[in-house]
């Protein structure tokens, strides 16, 4: 079974990043959401339509960037997009306008009449993305949107995805690029062996899986062994001559209090900041948790 009991909800205006190792069930999930695969159990609604009984409506409402681009090498970009525009029942004027706009946006305008077979990997990826966006769908399912792209092109695509966020559009991105997932998404879902093992906002997942945030305070002069032991909800994790690291579940209360205490003691503070916690840590923690253990939902 490729996926088992996957439960996700993405509201209009949200971007969900679906993360997981190869073979975890990301692509299968996307295919079920596009009504290409039929779930043996359960249900899904996409853009208000049931994926089993209203599959043509679902497919009309979804823009999909598939893992394999699936382009026709002998066609040129304009003909290719026009073909899909017709399948999505766009009228000729809207098609022409949208095709011009997307080719401009993705920097493919100059190559519009070249055969797709002559395109580079990155150009193909951009064209495939343009195909997904062509009919301005309310739901976007993007499987590895920036894979095989050079950094500049990847930036361009990420910007495009960011610009696609709107109150009326829901986006799901499947990716192995964790920095991209963190940058683009409001929510993260981690899937392993067909099951969602962690879901929530990036911050929520970090708190859940890595514990309370850690802060680092640097002073302008040595602390002379001073420790703020009297502070509640404060756990010292490391200390140097002029710095200390600590964890607190209530930074809004603890941090001002700590600053005030130091200033009262005549110790000027040069910086106080949260220690960066990468999504990679969250991901690895979730993925490597014992089999069958639900990491939890934030």
């Amino acid at each position, binding site marked *: 079974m490729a996926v088992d009991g996957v439960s996700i909800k993405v509201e209009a205006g949200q971007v969900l990043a679906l993360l997981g190792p190869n073979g975890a069930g990301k692509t299968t999930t996307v*295919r079920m959401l*596009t009504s*290409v*695969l*039929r779930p043996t159990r359960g249900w899904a609604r996409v853009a208000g339509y049931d994926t089993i009984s209203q599959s*043509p*409506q679902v*497919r*009309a409402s*979804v823009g*999909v960037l*598939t893992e*394999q*681009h*699936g*382009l*026709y090498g*002998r*066609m040129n970009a304009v*003909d290719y997009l026009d*073909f*899909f525009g*017709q*399948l*999505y*029942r766009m009228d000729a004027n809207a098609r022409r306008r949208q095709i011009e706009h997307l080719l401009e946006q993705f920097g493919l305008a100059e190559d519009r009449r070249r055969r797709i077979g002559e395109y580079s990997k990155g150009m193909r990826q951009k064209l*495939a993305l343009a*195909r997904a966006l062509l009919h301005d769908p309310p739901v976007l399912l993007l499987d590895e949107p920036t894979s095989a792209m050079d950094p500049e092109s990847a930036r361009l695509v990420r910007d495009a995805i960011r610009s696609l966020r709107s109150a009326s559009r829901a986006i799901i991105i499947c990716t192995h690029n964790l920095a991209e997932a963190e940058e683009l998404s409001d929510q993260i879902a981690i899937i392993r062996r067909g099951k969602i093992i962690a879901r929530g906002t990036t911050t929520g997942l970090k708190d859940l899986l890595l514990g309370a945030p850690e802060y680092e305070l640097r002073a302008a002069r040595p602390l002379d062994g001073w420790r703020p032991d009297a502070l509640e909800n404060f756990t010292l994790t490391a200390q140097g001559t002029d710095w200390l690291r600590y964890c607190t579940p209530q930074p809004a209360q603890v941090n001002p209090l700590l600053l005030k205490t130091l200033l009262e003691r005549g110790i000027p503070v040069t910086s106080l900041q949260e220690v960066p916690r990468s999504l990679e840590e969250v991901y690895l923690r979730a993925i490597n948790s014992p089999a069958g253990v639900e990491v939890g939902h934030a």
Partner: protein
Amino acid sequence: MLERFRPAFIVTVREVRDQFRDWRIVVPIFVLTIFFPFLMNFTAAQVVSFVQRYGGEMLIGERLIPFLLMIVGFFPVTVSLVIALESFVGESERRSIEPLLSSPLTDFQLYLGKLLASLVPPLVASYLGVAVYLFGVWRNVGWTPPPVLLTQVIVLTAVQGVVMVSGAVVISTQTTSVRAANLLASFVIIPMALLMQGESVLMFWGRYSLLWWVIVGQLVLAGLLIRTGIAHFNREELLGRELDVLNLRWAWHVFWRAFAGEARSLSAWLRYEIVRALNRLAIPMALMALLLVAGVGIGIWQANIYVLPPGAFDLQQLKEADPVILQQLQVFGFFSVQGVSYIWLHNLRAVALATLLGIFSFGVAGVLVLMAPLALMGFLAQASAGAGFPPFVFLAAFLLPHGFLELPAIIVSGAAILRLGATLVTPSPGQTIGEAWLKALADWVKIVILVAVPLFLGAAILEVFVTPRTALMLLANF
């Protein structure tokens, strides 16, 4: 209505354009459209000239020209087979099928679009080839085709194309690689080659009217193949299948689960599962009963067309020579256990043959085999009228005694065969074509072995020991 077909046409137009961008398709089509008709022109002119020069039978030349017309039409359309074979599996292999499957196209639209795309360019090429050939023979030997023959060739070419394409598209949707599809293409090529030989015989024989039957037969076959393709078109299979693996363990598991059913003991199986299988066959059984009646009707109809000469079917002899006839019947194995086993095994062989033919013909040929004895009975019954016996007396004498067991046996086995064949053209949601077929096979085994075989045995006993006496008694007293 047109809106329903529009997306299919969009797919067709794209694919046709793509084909004309591929020189591997364009070159053969061009050669078969232009060069090949010229070659056939040359051949026709040479043969006609040869025959004229040596004062031979002009019939040979006259028959050769229409035959070559058919060949000129057929050759370019064979390209459609190659295109159709890779229509789905080729895209699947190139991974370009997923965006299509994710588009709002329905299964029917996608299927039809691909089917037309495989058919249209080779068909247009065929007609161009025919035009080139006809122009050539008109110029060289002054021959013009009779309008009916020309219509037949045009329709026949199209129908042959549809049959090849629909068969090839079915293969294309059910395989995982172009290589596998090409290997399976022999299931289309060999029957088409045999068909062409049959059509060639008709052309040289000059029985052009029979070509209409060939056309109708192929139309029915094409319809069934298209239905098969659409019924078993499965997006999931197209995307998900990576390997063609013959999984015998899985096949046995599916078969056994369907065969054993939910019964926990032999008695429960006999009581419930057989009844359930019969219930599943209710519609095919009703259809089979109607077809047997139709078989009798066909026999009666044919008897009215092919009337036997007077005296050829003299039942009066049977009336008068009763004791002698009984002795003669004994010589032929009647009134003996050997006779029973012979008739029983003969009927079982007929069912086995019907099953085999039914599997490869969506059940149709299998049913025809089982209808044949009834058609013969209808023919003889009608012929008996000429000998002074009402047909129903003949049927009561020769069919009724053992028929009350044999007819149900034919009906149930025919229904099982029909279902086995029809499974291939019936949608089976949630299961693969193989799974559905194995379940139908399990029902066939249950019904044929546990219902039909005992019934046939009972019928054979009656046919050997009771029917001859009843027949002679009835005829003697009529």
